[in-house]
Protein backbone atom coordinates (compact mmCIF):
# COMPACT_ATOMS: atom_id res chain seq x y z
CA UNK A 1 0.00 0.00 0.00
CA UNK A 2 1.64 3.19 -1.15
CA UNK A 3 -0.21 5.51 1.29
CA UNK A 4 1.67 3.90 4.18
CA UNK A 5 5.11 4.39 2.66
CA UNK A 6 5.98 7.23 5.06
CA UNK A 7 4.56 5.39 8.08
CA UNK A 8 7.06 4.14 10.66
CA UNK A 9 5.39 1.45 12.73
CA UNK A 10 6.04 0.78 16.40
CA UNK A 11 6.60 -2.90 16.96
CA UNK A 12 7.03 -4.80 20.22
CA UNK A 13 9.56 -7.58 19.66
CA UNK A 14 9.81 -10.28 22.31
CA UNK A 15 13.08 -12.18 21.85
CA UNK A 16 14.25 -15.28 23.66
CA UNK A 17 17.47 -14.58 25.55
CA UNK A 18 19.14 -17.74 24.27
CA UNK A 19 18.72 -17.50 20.52
CA UNK A 20 16.95 -14.67 18.74
CA UNK A 21 18.36 -12.09 21.12
CA UNK A 22 21.80 -13.47 20.33
CA UNK A 23 20.89 -13.56 16.64
CA UNK A 24 20.00 -9.88 16.78
CA UNK A 25 23.30 -9.20 18.51
CA UNK A 26 25.21 -11.11 15.85
CA UNK A 27 23.36 -9.25 13.10
CA UNK A 28 24.43 -6.00 14.73
CA UNK A 29 28.05 -7.06 15.22
CA UNK A 30 28.10 -8.26 11.62
CA UNK A 31 26.91 -4.79 10.46
CA UNK A 32 23.83 -6.25 8.78
CA UNK A 33 21.30 -3.52 8.07
CA UNK A 34 17.68 -3.94 9.12
CA UNK A 35 14.84 -1.49 9.79
CA UNK A 36 14.99 0.06 13.29
CA UNK A 37 11.23 0.07 13.91
CA UNK A 38 10.95 -2.53 16.64
CA UNK A 39 11.64 -2.27 20.36
CA UNK A 40 13.24 -5.42 21.69
CA UNK A 41 12.02 -6.92 24.95
CA UNK A 42 14.23 -9.73 26.20
CA UNK A 43 12.43 -12.73 27.68
CA UNK A 44 14.06 -15.81 29.19
CA UNK A 45 12.26 -18.19 26.83
CA UNK A 46 9.28 -18.02 24.49
CA UNK A 47 7.64 -20.30 27.04
CA UNK A 48 7.61 -17.26 29.34
CA UNK A 49 5.53 -15.38 26.81
CA UNK A 50 1.98 -14.85 27.96
CA UNK A 51 -0.86 -13.89 25.62
CA UNK A 52 -1.39 -11.02 28.07
CA UNK A 53 1.89 -9.49 26.90
CA UNK A 54 0.61 -9.34 23.35
CA UNK A 55 -2.64 -7.67 24.38
CA UNK A 56 -0.80 -5.30 26.72
CA UNK A 57 1.47 -4.24 23.87
CA UNK A 58 -1.56 -3.49 21.69
CA UNK A 59 -3.23 -1.63 24.57
CA UNK A 60 -0.23 0.62 24.84
CA UNK A 61 -0.31 1.43 21.17
CA UNK A 62 2.02 -0.78 19.19
CA UNK A 63 1.19 -1.47 15.57
CA UNK A 64 2.42 -5.04 15.63
CA UNK A 65 3.95 -7.74 17.79
CA UNK A 66 6.80 -10.07 16.91
CA UNK A 67 7.75 -13.02 19.07
CA UNK A 68 10.85 -15.02 18.27
CA UNK A 69 12.67 -17.86 19.95
CA UNK A 70 14.71 -21.01 19.50
CA UNK A 71 14.03 -23.56 16.81
CA UNK A 72 11.90 -26.50 18.00
CA UNK A 73 14.22 -28.94 19.71
CA UNK A 74 16.79 -26.28 20.61
CA UNK A 75 15.10 -24.79 23.67
CA UNK A 76 17.49 -23.95 26.50
CA UNK A 77 14.83 -25.27 28.86
CA UNK A 78 14.19 -28.36 26.74
CA UNK A 79 10.59 -27.72 25.72
CA UNK A 80 9.53 -24.11 26.46
CA UNK A 81 9.10 -23.26 22.81
CA UNK A 82 6.97 -26.35 22.16
CA UNK A 83 4.43 -25.23 24.77
CA UNK A 84 4.69 -21.68 23.45
CA UNK A 85 3.93 -22.90 19.95
CA UNK A 86 0.53 -24.26 20.98
CA UNK A 87 -0.30 -21.05 22.85
CA UNK A 88 0.76 -18.91 19.87
CA UNK A 89 -1.35 -20.98 17.53
CA UNK A 90 -4.49 -20.62 19.62
CA UNK A 91 -3.88 -16.95 20.44
CA UNK A 92 -3.04 -15.95 16.87
CA UNK A 93 -6.11 -17.72 15.52
CA UNK A 94 -8.27 -16.12 18.20
CA UNK A 95 -6.98 -12.59 17.64
CA UNK A 96 -7.37 -12.90 13.91
CA UNK A 97 -10.83 -14.37 14.48
CA UNK A 98 -11.94 -11.26 16.37
CA UNK A 99 -10.61 -8.95 13.67
CA UNK A 100 -6.93 -8.19 14.29
CA UNK A 101 -5.55 -8.10 10.73
CA UNK A 102 -3.37 -11.05 9.70
CA UNK A 103 0.12 -9.59 9.53
CA UNK A 104 0.11 -7.72 12.84
CA UNK A 105 1.29 -10.76 14.72
CA UNK A 106 4.53 -12.48 13.78
CA UNK A 107 6.29 -15.49 15.14
CA UNK A 108 9.65 -16.88 14.14
CA UNK A 109 12.35 -19.31 15.16
CA UNK A 110 15.81 -17.74 14.80
CA UNK A 111 18.94 -19.17 16.38
CA UNK A 112 21.82 -17.06 17.67
CA UNK A 113 23.89 -18.06 14.63
CA UNK A 114 21.28 -16.98 12.08
CA UNK A 115 22.14 -13.31 11.69
CA UNK A 116 21.09 -13.28 8.05
CA UNK A 117 17.78 -14.93 8.86
CA UNK A 118 17.31 -12.29 11.56
CA UNK A 119 17.98 -9.54 9.06
CA UNK A 120 15.59 -11.02 6.50
CA UNK A 121 12.84 -11.68 9.07
CA UNK A 122 13.16 -8.23 10.63
CA UNK A 123 12.76 -6.63 7.22
CA UNK A 124 9.78 -8.84 6.40
CA UNK A 125 8.02 -8.17 9.74
CA UNK A 126 8.49 -4.41 9.56
CA UNK A 127 7.35 -4.26 5.95
CA UNK A 128 4.25 -6.36 6.66
CA UNK A 129 3.22 -4.17 9.59
CA UNK A 130 4.08 -0.95 7.76
CA UNK A 131 1.85 -2.05 4.89
CA UNK A 132 -1.08 -2.46 7.30
CA UNK A 133 -0.73 1.07 8.65
CA UNK A 134 -1.35 2.15 12.26
CA UNK A 135 -3.15 -0.30 14.55
CA UNK A 136 -6.82 0.48 15.06
CA UNK A 137 -8.01 -2.08 17.58
CA UNK A 138 -7.38 -3.00 21.21
CA UNK A 139 -5.72 0.35 21.92
CA UNK A 140 -6.47 1.91 25.29
CA UNK A 141 -6.28 5.61 24.68
CA UNK A 142 -6.31 7.07 28.18
CA UNK A 143 -6.96 10.62 26.93
CA UNK A 144 -10.03 9.52 25.01
CA UNK A 145 -11.53 7.62 27.94
CA UNK A 146 -10.85 10.16 30.68
Amino acid at each position, binding site marked *: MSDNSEFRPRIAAFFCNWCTYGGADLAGVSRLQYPPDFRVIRIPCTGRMSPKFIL*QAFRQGVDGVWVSGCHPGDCHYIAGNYYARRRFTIMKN*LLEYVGIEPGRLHFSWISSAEATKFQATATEVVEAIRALGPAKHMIKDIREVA
Partner: protein
Amino acid sequence: MQARADKIRETAKKLLADGKVDVVIGYKKGTVPMREAPFFAYTPEEADQLVWTSFCCGNLANFAIRREKGEAGKFAVVAQGCVSRNLVGLLTENQFARDDIHVIGVPCLGMCDRRKVADKVGGKLIVEVTEEGDELVVSGQGWQEKVARKDVLRDNCLTCQHRNPVISDELAAEAVDETMGGDIDFTAAPWEKLDAAGRWEAFTAEVDACIRCYACRDACPLCYCHVCFVDESQPQWCGKTQDEADVASFHVLRAFHCAGRCTDCGACESACPVGVKMRRLTSKIEKDVRELYDYEPGMDAEATPPMSVYRPNDPQEFIK
Protein backbone atom coordinates in the same frame (compact mmCIF):
# COMPACT_ATOMS: atom_id res chain seq x y z
CA MET B 1 -38.09 -34.33 33.59
CA GLN B 2 -40.26 -35.09 36.61
CA ALA B 3 -39.06 -38.70 36.63
CA ARG B 4 -35.50 -37.46 36.66
CA ALA B 5 -36.23 -35.04 39.51
CA ASP B 6 -37.86 -37.82 41.56
CA LYS B 7 -34.94 -40.13 41.00
CA ILE B 8 -32.40 -37.40 41.92
CA ARG B 9 -34.31 -36.64 45.11
CA GLU B 10 -34.60 -40.31 46.03
CA THR B 11 -30.89 -40.90 45.37
CA ALA B 12 -29.86 -37.79 47.30
CA LYS B 13 -31.97 -38.77 50.30
CA LYS B 14 -30.50 -42.24 50.36
CA LEU B 15 -26.91 -40.94 50.07
CA LEU B 16 -27.44 -38.41 52.86
CA ALA B 17 -29.34 -40.82 55.11
CA ASP B 18 -26.65 -43.49 54.71
CA GLY B 19 -23.97 -40.92 55.43
CA LYS B 20 -22.22 -41.71 52.17
CA VAL B 21 -21.87 -38.02 51.36
CA ASP B 22 -21.95 -34.83 53.44
CA VAL B 23 -23.77 -32.77 50.88
CA VAL B 24 -25.60 -33.15 47.60
CA ILE B 25 -25.09 -30.30 45.15
CA GLY B 26 -28.14 -29.93 42.93
CA TYR B 27 -30.77 -27.41 41.88
CA LYS B 28 -33.76 -26.01 43.68
CA LYS B 29 -36.64 -23.99 42.29
CA GLY B 30 -35.43 -20.48 41.52
CA THR B 31 -37.00 -17.38 43.02
CA VAL B 32 -37.91 -16.19 39.54
CA PRO B 33 -39.32 -18.44 36.79
CA MET B 34 -36.89 -20.20 34.43
CA ARG B 35 -33.87 -19.72 36.67
CA GLU B 36 -33.28 -22.75 38.85
CA ALA B 37 -30.78 -22.02 41.59
CA PRO B 38 -27.87 -24.15 42.75
CA PHE B 39 -28.69 -25.83 46.04
CA PHE B 40 -26.68 -27.62 48.71
CA ALA B 41 -28.69 -30.33 50.47
CA TYR B 42 -27.07 -31.33 53.77
CA THR B 43 -29.93 -33.42 55.19
CA PRO B 44 -32.46 -35.85 53.70
CA GLU B 45 -35.19 -33.29 54.52
CA GLU B 46 -33.40 -30.60 52.55
CA ALA B 47 -33.08 -33.02 49.65
CA ASP B 48 -36.85 -32.66 49.16
CA GLN B 49 -36.20 -29.27 47.61
CA LEU B 50 -34.07 -30.69 44.79
CA VAL B 51 -35.54 -30.28 41.31
CA TRP B 52 -34.65 -31.08 37.72
CA THR B 53 -36.28 -28.96 35.02
CA SER B 54 -35.49 -27.48 31.62
CA PHE B 55 -33.85 -24.51 33.28
CA CYS B 56 -30.95 -26.05 35.19
CA CYS B 57 -28.64 -23.83 33.17
CA GLY B 58 -25.75 -23.35 35.56
CA ASN B 59 -22.81 -25.68 35.89
CA LEU B 60 -22.67 -27.49 39.23
CA ALA B 61 -19.04 -28.53 38.71
CA ASN B 62 -18.42 -24.90 39.62
CA PHE B 63 -19.57 -25.52 43.18
CA ALA B 64 -17.54 -28.66 43.61
CA ILE B 65 -14.50 -26.38 43.80
CA ARG B 66 -16.06 -23.41 45.54
CA ARG B 67 -17.28 -24.94 48.75
CA GLU B 68 -16.93 -23.35 52.16
CA LYS B 69 -13.56 -23.66 53.82
CA GLY B 70 -13.38 -26.71 56.04
CA GLU B 71 -15.93 -28.66 54.04
CA ALA B 72 -13.63 -31.49 53.22
CA GLY B 73 -16.00 -34.45 53.19
CA LYS B 74 -17.33 -36.38 50.28
CA PHE B 75 -19.96 -34.67 48.16
CA ALA B 76 -22.41 -35.66 45.48
CA VAL B 77 -22.94 -33.61 42.34
CA VAL B 78 -25.90 -33.80 40.01
CA ALA B 79 -24.27 -33.85 36.59
CA GLN B 80 -25.52 -33.99 33.03
CA GLY B 81 -23.14 -34.58 30.11
CA CYS B 82 -21.35 -31.22 30.09
CA VAL B 83 -21.07 -30.97 33.86
CA SER B 84 -19.63 -34.48 34.10
CA ARG B 85 -17.04 -33.46 31.50
CA ASN B 86 -16.15 -30.45 33.63
CA LEU B 87 -15.81 -32.73 36.63
CA VAL B 88 -13.39 -34.87 34.60
CA GLY B 89 -11.51 -31.71 33.64
CA LEU B 90 -11.25 -30.68 37.29
CA LEU B 91 -10.06 -34.17 38.20
CA THR B 92 -7.33 -33.83 35.56
CA GLU B 93 -6.41 -30.48 37.09
CA ASN B 94 -6.21 -32.09 40.54
CA GLN B 95 -8.96 -30.00 42.08
CA PHE B 96 -10.33 -33.02 43.94
CA ALA B 97 -9.96 -36.77 43.91
CA ARG B 98 -12.36 -39.14 42.18
CA ASP B 99 -13.07 -40.78 45.54
CA ASP B 100 -14.26 -37.46 46.98
CA ILE B 101 -17.14 -37.10 44.58
CA HIS B 102 -20.25 -39.11 43.99
CA VAL B 103 -21.69 -38.28 40.60
CA ILE B 104 -25.44 -38.52 40.16
CA GLY B 105 -25.47 -38.66 36.38
CA VAL B 106 -28.41 -37.27 34.45
CA PRO B 107 -28.73 -38.19 30.77
CA CYS B 108 -29.72 -34.78 29.50
CA LEU B 109 -32.47 -33.72 27.13
CA GLY B 110 -31.06 -30.22 26.75
CA MET B 111 -31.82 -27.08 28.68
CA CYS B 112 -34.02 -24.21 27.52
CA ASP B 113 -33.05 -20.63 27.00
CA ARG B 114 -35.21 -18.29 29.08
CA ARG B 115 -34.71 -15.51 26.52
CA LYS B 116 -36.03 -17.69 23.71
CA VAL B 117 -39.08 -18.56 25.83
CA ALA B 118 -39.69 -14.89 26.55
CA ASP B 119 -39.46 -14.13 22.80
CA LYS B 120 -41.90 -16.94 21.99
CA VAL B 121 -44.59 -15.47 24.19
CA GLY B 122 -43.96 -11.97 22.90
CA GLY B 123 -42.13 -10.65 25.94
CA LYS B 124 -45.16 -10.93 28.24
CA LEU B 125 -44.43 -11.18 31.97
CA ILE B 126 -44.02 -14.85 32.82
CA VAL B 127 -45.11 -15.95 36.27
CA GLU B 128 -44.74 -19.69 36.03
CA VAL B 129 -43.35 -22.32 33.69
CA THR B 130 -44.21 -25.98 34.13
CA GLU B 131 -43.51 -28.96 31.90
CA GLU B 132 -45.72 -31.45 30.14
CA GLY B 133 -43.66 -33.97 28.22
CA ASP B 134 -41.99 -32.18 25.34
CA GLU B 135 -43.82 -28.93 25.99
CA LEU B 136 -43.40 -26.05 28.36
CA VAL B 137 -46.56 -24.57 29.80
CA VAL B 138 -45.83 -20.88 30.16
CA SER B 139 -48.30 -18.86 32.15
CA GLY B 140 -48.71 -15.33 33.35
CA GLN B 141 -51.53 -13.28 34.77
CA GLY B 142 -54.62 -14.36 32.85
CA TRP B 143 -52.87 -16.19 30.03
CA GLN B 144 -51.29 -19.52 29.30
CA GLU B 145 -49.31 -20.71 26.28
CA LYS B 146 -47.61 -23.92 25.28
CA VAL B 147 -44.13 -23.85 23.81
CA ALA B 148 -42.32 -26.87 22.37
CA ARG B 149 -39.05 -27.51 24.21
CA LYS B 150 -37.19 -28.12 20.97
CA ASP B 151 -37.97 -24.58 19.77
CA VAL B 152 -36.41 -22.92 22.79
CA LEU B 153 -33.37 -25.10 23.50
CA ARG B 154 -30.16 -23.26 24.30
CA ASP B 155 -27.78 -22.87 21.35
CA ASN B 156 -25.12 -25.04 22.96
CA CYS B 157 -27.66 -27.77 23.74
CA LEU B 158 -28.73 -27.89 20.07
CA THR B 159 -25.19 -28.80 19.03
CA CYS B 160 -24.40 -30.88 22.11
CA GLN B 161 -22.19 -33.87 21.32
CA HIS B 162 -22.26 -35.67 24.67
CA ARG B 163 -25.58 -35.65 26.45
CA ASN B 164 -24.86 -38.65 28.65
CA PRO B 165 -22.57 -38.25 31.65
CA VAL B 166 -18.98 -39.30 31.01
CA ILE B 167 -18.51 -40.34 34.62
CA SER B 168 -21.26 -41.30 37.00
CA ASP B 169 -21.79 -43.45 40.05
CA GLU B 170 -25.45 -43.86 39.28
CA LEU B 171 -27.82 -42.63 36.61
CA ALA B 172 -31.10 -40.81 37.17
CA ALA B 173 -32.57 -42.05 33.87
CA GLU B 174 -31.92 -44.34 30.92
CA ALA B 175 -29.15 -43.18 28.62
CA VAL B 176 -30.30 -40.93 25.76
CA ASP B 177 -28.89 -40.32 22.26
CA GLU B 178 -25.41 -38.81 22.56
CA THR B 179 -26.08 -35.85 20.31
CA MET B 180 -28.95 -33.45 19.83
CA GLY B 181 -28.43 -33.60 16.08
CA GLY B 182 -26.97 -30.12 15.56
CA ASP B 183 -23.71 -29.80 13.62
CA ILE B 184 -21.13 -28.19 15.89
CA ASP B 185 -18.65 -27.63 13.04
CA PHE B 186 -21.29 -25.73 11.11
CA THR B 187 -22.23 -23.35 13.91
CA ALA B 188 -18.83 -22.96 15.62
CA ALA B 189 -16.81 -19.82 14.94
CA PRO B 190 -19.54 -17.89 13.09
CA TRP B 191 -17.34 -14.91 12.22
CA GLU B 192 -14.79 -16.95 10.28
CA LYS B 193 -16.44 -16.18 6.96
CA LEU B 194 -16.02 -12.41 7.42
CA ASP B 195 -12.96 -10.31 6.57
CA ALA B 196 -10.85 -8.67 9.29
CA ALA B 197 -12.90 -5.46 9.44
CA GLY B 198 -16.17 -7.39 9.48
CA ARG B 199 -14.92 -9.66 12.23
CA TRP B 200 -13.93 -6.74 14.44
CA GLU B 201 -17.29 -5.14 13.83
CA ALA B 202 -19.15 -8.35 14.67
CA PHE B 203 -17.03 -8.97 17.75
CA THR B 204 -17.36 -5.48 19.20
CA ALA B 205 -21.08 -5.41 18.42
CA GLU B 206 -21.47 -8.71 20.30
CA VAL B 207 -19.64 -7.56 23.44
CA ASP B 208 -20.86 -3.97 23.23
CA ALA B 209 -23.55 -4.53 25.87
CA CYS B 210 -21.07 -6.10 28.30
CA ILE B 211 -21.19 -4.40 31.69
CA ARG B 212 -18.14 -6.29 32.94
CA CYS B 213 -20.00 -7.91 35.83
CA TYR B 214 -17.91 -11.07 35.35
CA ALA B 215 -20.98 -13.28 35.76
CA CYS B 216 -19.63 -15.40 32.88
CA ARG B 217 -16.39 -15.90 34.75
CA ASP B 218 -18.11 -16.68 38.04
CA ALA B 219 -20.51 -19.15 36.42
CA CYS B 220 -17.63 -21.00 34.77
CA PRO B 221 -16.13 -24.08 36.44
CA LEU B 222 -12.85 -23.41 34.60
CA CYS B 223 -12.30 -20.07 36.31
CA TYR B 224 -10.97 -20.78 39.77
CA CYS B 225 -7.73 -18.78 39.95
CA HIS B 226 -7.34 -17.07 43.34
CA VAL B 227 -6.51 -13.83 41.59
CA CYS B 228 -8.09 -13.40 38.18
CA PHE B 229 -6.19 -11.44 35.55
CA VAL B 230 -8.94 -8.81 35.56
CA ASP B 231 -8.23 -8.11 39.22
CA GLU B 232 -4.47 -7.84 38.87
CA SER B 233 -3.31 -4.24 39.11
CA GLN B 234 0.44 -4.36 38.67
CA PRO B 235 0.54 -4.62 35.76
CA GLN B 236 -3.07 -4.01 34.95
CA TRP B 237 -3.80 -6.33 32.03
CA CYS B 238 -7.33 -5.18 31.62
CA GLY B 239 -8.84 -1.84 32.64
CA LYS B 240 -12.01 -1.62 34.69
CA THR B 241 -13.88 0.59 32.27
CA GLN B 242 -16.35 -0.20 29.52
CA ASP B 243 -13.88 1.14 26.98
CA GLU B 244 -13.80 -0.99 23.82
CA ALA B 245 -10.20 -2.08 24.41
CA ASP B 246 -10.90 -3.17 27.99
CA VAL B 247 -14.01 -5.13 27.11
CA ALA B 248 -12.29 -6.72 24.11
CA SER B 249 -9.20 -7.68 26.17
CA PHE B 250 -11.39 -9.21 28.85
CA HIS B 251 -13.38 -11.35 26.44
CA VAL B 252 -10.36 -12.44 24.40
CA LEU B 253 -8.35 -13.44 27.46
CA ARG B 254 -11.27 -15.09 29.21
CA ALA B 255 -11.89 -17.18 26.11
CA PHE B 256 -8.19 -17.99 25.79
CA HIS B 257 -8.10 -19.31 29.34
CA CYS B 258 -10.77 -21.83 28.33
CA ALA B 259 -8.60 -23.28 25.56
CA GLY B 260 -8.68 -27.06 25.64
CA ARG B 261 -10.90 -27.00 28.74
CA CYS B 262 -14.26 -25.58 27.69
CA THR B 263 -16.99 -28.21 27.42
CA ASP B 264 -19.49 -25.84 25.83
CA CYS B 265 -21.85 -26.11 28.81
CA GLY B 266 -23.30 -22.66 28.07
CA ALA B 267 -23.33 -21.53 31.71
CA CYS B 268 -21.58 -18.27 30.71
CA GLU B 269 -24.28 -17.31 28.23
CA SER B 270 -27.07 -18.34 30.59
CA ALA B 271 -25.52 -16.28 33.40
CA CYS B 272 -25.00 -13.16 31.31
CA PRO B 273 -27.47 -10.45 32.35
CA VAL B 274 -27.23 -8.65 29.00
CA GLY B 275 -27.22 -11.61 26.62
CA VAL B 276 -23.66 -11.52 25.30
CA LYS B 277 -23.04 -14.69 23.30
CA MET B 278 -19.49 -15.45 24.38
CA ARG B 279 -19.71 -18.94 22.91
CA ARG B 280 -18.98 -17.24 19.58
CA LEU B 281 -15.45 -16.85 20.94
CA THR B 282 -15.01 -20.07 22.85
CA SER B 283 -16.42 -22.18 20.02
CA LYS B 284 -13.60 -20.95 17.78
CA ILE B 285 -10.95 -22.13 20.25
CA GLU B 286 -12.79 -25.36 20.81
CA LYS B 287 -12.85 -25.95 17.05
CA ASP B 288 -9.12 -25.18 16.75
CA VAL B 289 -8.26 -27.53 19.58
CA ARG B 290 -10.41 -30.25 18.03
CA GLU B 291 -8.91 -29.84 14.57
CA LEU B 292 -5.28 -29.11 15.45
CA TYR B 293 -4.75 -31.25 18.53
CA ASP B 294 -7.54 -33.79 18.14
CA TYR B 295 -8.77 -33.25 21.68
CA GLU B 296 -12.19 -33.04 23.25
CA PRO B 297 -12.15 -31.64 26.79
CA GLY B 298 -13.39 -33.76 29.66
CA MET B 299 -13.77 -37.07 27.87
CA ASP B 300 -10.88 -38.91 29.50
CA ALA B 301 -9.46 -38.30 32.99
CA GLU B 302 -6.18 -39.92 31.94
CA ALA B 303 -5.59 -37.69 28.90
CA THR B 304 -3.30 -34.68 29.33
CA PRO B 305 -4.95 -31.35 28.52
CA PRO B 306 -3.75 -30.05 25.13
CA MET B 307 -2.22 -26.81 26.41
CA SER B 308 0.04 -28.59 28.89
CA VAL B 309 1.49 -31.02 26.42
CA TYR B 310 3.06 -30.83 22.97
CA ARG B 311 3.99 -32.89 19.97
CA PRO B 312 7.28 -32.17 18.17
CA ASN B 313 5.37 -32.06 14.88
CA ASP B 314 2.59 -29.69 15.96
CA PRO B 315 1.38 -27.49 13.07
CA GLN B 316 3.46 -24.31 12.69
CA GLU B 317 2.83 -23.02 9.16
CA PHE B 318 2.52 -19.44 10.43
CA ILE B 319 5.90 -19.41 12.16
CA LYS B 320 8.74 -18.03 10.05
